[in-house]
């Protein structure tokens, strides 16, 4: 029988230009490669060495050098090298060295020649990529492991010229400007009042969809068809953040600003190269799966992404938002599949996420916490069955994909949490106006809420109402304070045990219950008390700092402490996954280094002081 090299074929199918070859050609290629492993810092090719293969990086990082010893290119998974040498003279032009442990697939020269002669696009790709490389020569632009995404600022991607137009410029002239500068988007500014103020963005696609397809006259002003709901990134944000933002909101262009002043635009095409190689690749694969069973198979990929991000020193915010984005994408795809199966919804609805996913602080060990807001026309007899089935489909699907059912029953399958808009508004009014500490204990999770699918603007309206009401209802805040103080950090933290406030000693510490959760609770209370609309703890802290809600320096201290505790928890879970165990939240001080223990102790002290401050601030109304 013909041997089937599944892994090699699957890999080649993901890698340009092989991805465009016919399936049977790829199967055949998979049977023709050789494989070689190089440990970090080994020589792979020497200059002038006779060449017999095209080198494809299966995993790891390889660097090639000029004769002068200067770095020529850095290649990672899915990149290839030695094609110039193969095309001309069959000798290596650039020496190559493995930067990390590297596995290479080697495609024999005669096979390479055959592909080059048979497939035009393959030949083009080999030649064009060479030209392109000669032009850019920028190492950071051609490579793209997570590590680089997490450490390169967005500004490093800004190559194209920034083109700005006045809001009143007719689209025909906008299009001319775009061709002149060969850009696919322009920023629209208010030329009269304040030329620095960004009003919107206009893209190729907008002109096609909103002008040409709608048969509007070419004299239509730019402001009529531009996109005004803008997401922007700061020039010193990381590329990874930009990628998250684009995937999260499904936008293809992001204006880049420096202190609010537009300095450029990055397009999704600047990032696709990176995306294929990053942990976020799993997001696009989620949307390619066509059944719950297929989605469930991605569970291992999600865990691998998580571990990889930890290994590459991502901060807790990056990991939390990436995992939240992945969780969100699972929900969205499940809802798409559910709607395909059950038919379109009879009335509008919004699927919402609660708790850590809404705060973008999701990790691996996480229950599904979700709910559904229905249109006010909801009628039990007529629509009840549809939405119950929808909720059931999604919650079962999430469970299969590694997000177990919520033990507290906070799921859209629960009738209480699948209600019309007016009922939801009533819930929140009740919680805030007639609070009881016990009642709020179980519902504080609802104060971290984000729309996932459907009428997401309903959630914004709900959040506006909450932020208006909460800050003026003292008894509500007092109850939230009381709950936020129920869980305390441990007092002492020693070599191999934890000292509790009452003198008891424990071997392990539940770092969620004693660390991240009380910290998030505490930050939430301050946020609600000061009318902050953000959900993410770090963004809430930024708001608290900016509006001087906390004493000087305290928001920063709390941020650092929270980051440290969260990272300890993340590393603990990643380690468990690497060792093939189920990740949990129980950290034993014994597993930590002296350095980690010292810092963790300090972080718990900051948290403890912050709890004392919260108690003191609301002492009068307790």
């Amino acid at each position: 029988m013909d041997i089937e090299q599944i892994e090699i074929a699957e890999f080649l199918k993901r890698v340009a230009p092989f991805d465009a070859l016919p399936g049977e050609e790829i199967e055949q290629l998979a049977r023709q490669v050789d494989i070689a492993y190089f440990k970090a810092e080994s020589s792979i090719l020497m200059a002038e060495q006779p060449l017999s293969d095209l080198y494809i990086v299966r995993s790891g990082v390889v660097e090639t050098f000029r004769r002068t010893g200067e770095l020529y290119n850095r290649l990672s998974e899915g990149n290839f090298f030695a094609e110039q040498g193969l095309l001309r003279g069959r000798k290596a032009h650039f020496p190559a060295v493995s930067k990390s442990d590297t596995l290479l697939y080697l495609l024999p020269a005669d096979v390479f020649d055959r592909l080059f002669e048979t497939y035009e696009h393959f030949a083009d790709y080999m030649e064009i990529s060479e030209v392109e490389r000669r032009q850019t020569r920028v190492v950071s632009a051609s490579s793209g492991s997570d590590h680089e995404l997490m450490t390169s600022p967005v500004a490093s991607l800004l190559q194209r010229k920034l083109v700005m137009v006045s809001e009143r410029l007719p689209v025909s002239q906008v299009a001319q400007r775009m061709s002149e500068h060969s850009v696919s988007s322009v920023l629209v500014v208010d030329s009269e009042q304040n030329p620095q103020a960004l009003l919107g963005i206009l893209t190729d696609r907008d002109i096609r969809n909103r002008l040409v397809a709608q048969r509007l006259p070419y004299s239509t002003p730019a402001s009529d068809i531009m996109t005004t709901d803008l997401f922007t990134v700061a020039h010193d944000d990381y590329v990874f953040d930009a990628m998250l933002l684009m995937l999260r909101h499904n936008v293809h262009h992001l204006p880049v600003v420096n202190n609010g002043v537009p300095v450029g635009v990055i397009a999704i095409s600047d990032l696709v190269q990176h995306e294929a190689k990053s942990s976020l690749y799993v997001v696009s694969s989620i949307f390619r799966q066509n059944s719950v069973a297929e989605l469930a198979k991605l569970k291992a990929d999600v865990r691998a992404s998580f571990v990889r991000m930890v290994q590459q020193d991502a901060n807790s915010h990056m990991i939390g938002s990436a995992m939240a984005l992945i969780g969100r994408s699972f929900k969205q795809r499940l809802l798409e599949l559910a709607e395909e199966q059950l038919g379109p919804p009879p009335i509008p609805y919004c699927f919402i996420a609660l708790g850590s996913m809404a705060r973008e602080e999701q990790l691996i060990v996480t229950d599904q916490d979700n709910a559904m807001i229905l249109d006010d026309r909801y009628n039990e007899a007529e629509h009840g069955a549809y939405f119950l089935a929808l909720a059931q489909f999604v919650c079962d699907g999430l469970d299969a994909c590694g997000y177990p059912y919520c033990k507290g029953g906070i799921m859209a399958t629960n009738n209480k949490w699948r209600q019309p808009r007016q009922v939801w508004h009533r819930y929140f009014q009740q919680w805030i106006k007639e609070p009881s500490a016990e009642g709020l204990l179980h519902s504080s999770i609802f104060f971290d809420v984000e729309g996932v699918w459907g009428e997401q603007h309903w959630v914004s309206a709900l959040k506006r109402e909450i932020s208006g009401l909460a800050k003026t209802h003292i008894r509500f805040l007092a109850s939230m304070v009381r709950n936020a103080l129920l869980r305390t950090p441990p007092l002492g933290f020693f070599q191999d045990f934890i000292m509790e406030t009452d003198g008891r000693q424990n071997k392990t510490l539940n770092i969620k219950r004693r660390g991240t959760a009380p910290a998030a609770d505490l930050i939430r209370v301050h946020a609600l008390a000061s009318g902050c609309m953000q959900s993410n703890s770090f963004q809430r802290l930024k708001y608290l700092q900016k509006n001087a809600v906390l004493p000087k320096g305290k928001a920063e201290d709390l941020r650092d402490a929270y980051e440290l505790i969260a990272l300890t928890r993340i590393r603990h879970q990643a380690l468990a996954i690497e060792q093939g165990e189920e990740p949990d939240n129980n950290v034993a001080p014994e597993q930590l280094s002296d350095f980690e223990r010292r810092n963790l102790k300090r972080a718990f002290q900051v948290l403890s002081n912050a709890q004392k401050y919260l108690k003191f601030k609301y002492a009068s109304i307790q």
Partner: protein
Amino acid sequence: MFYLPKENLALAKAEPDLVVQNWPDFFARQHKQAQHPLLKRYYQSKVPKPNTPIGEVELLAMDMETTGLNAKVDGIVSIAVVPFTLARIKVSQARQWLLKPRYQLTEASIKIHRLTHSEVEAAQDITDILPELLALLAGRVAVVHYRAIERPFLHETLLDRLGEGFHFPLFDTMAIEAQFHRKKLSWLKRLKGSRPEVSIRLADSRRRYHLPDYRPHHAATDALACAELLQAQIAHHYSSRLPIGKLLL
């Protein structure tokens, strides 16, 4: 590769594992004693001397899928091999055979190995493929992950078919891994079970060398995975000059 739950490893232990000190002598003796011409020819092949540098030796990664763990009662479902050296894994020369096991396949093992019933029916008898398998093994050192599967199963199967057993030199990537990653804890600590031992299963071992994750339970993939692992282990812990006698089992 049969994926063993950690605690079951002991169950699969082979019959008294024959320990060969001097392979060239062993081959010479077997060549005289063997009855079947195929085996006679195999033992006539050159077996590398123990002081040969590993970089100069031809290798053959091998993986087997079986109906169970006990070589006495279970059978071989498929065998995959891939010839390689420390420098190159020759995927183009890889071979895989589906075999008729001696005993009926259970539904469960068909599922584990993602076989279809028609594939099982199209399978060959081991005697059909033996000439090719032995020709590939001749002059090469076999490489397996966990020797207590491949060796006893080949031995028992041939004993059953040809009336003669079979023994061949190999490197065991799991034994190599155990050497470097199992002995870090003192016996006292292990006794107390304070920390989990490092896993030396194929997938976990590969990760330590930053090899990509491959999906398991496919003999061709597992043989490949094992070959890559040996390349990585030698690169990290030894060098291509290592005399093979140090690792030969």
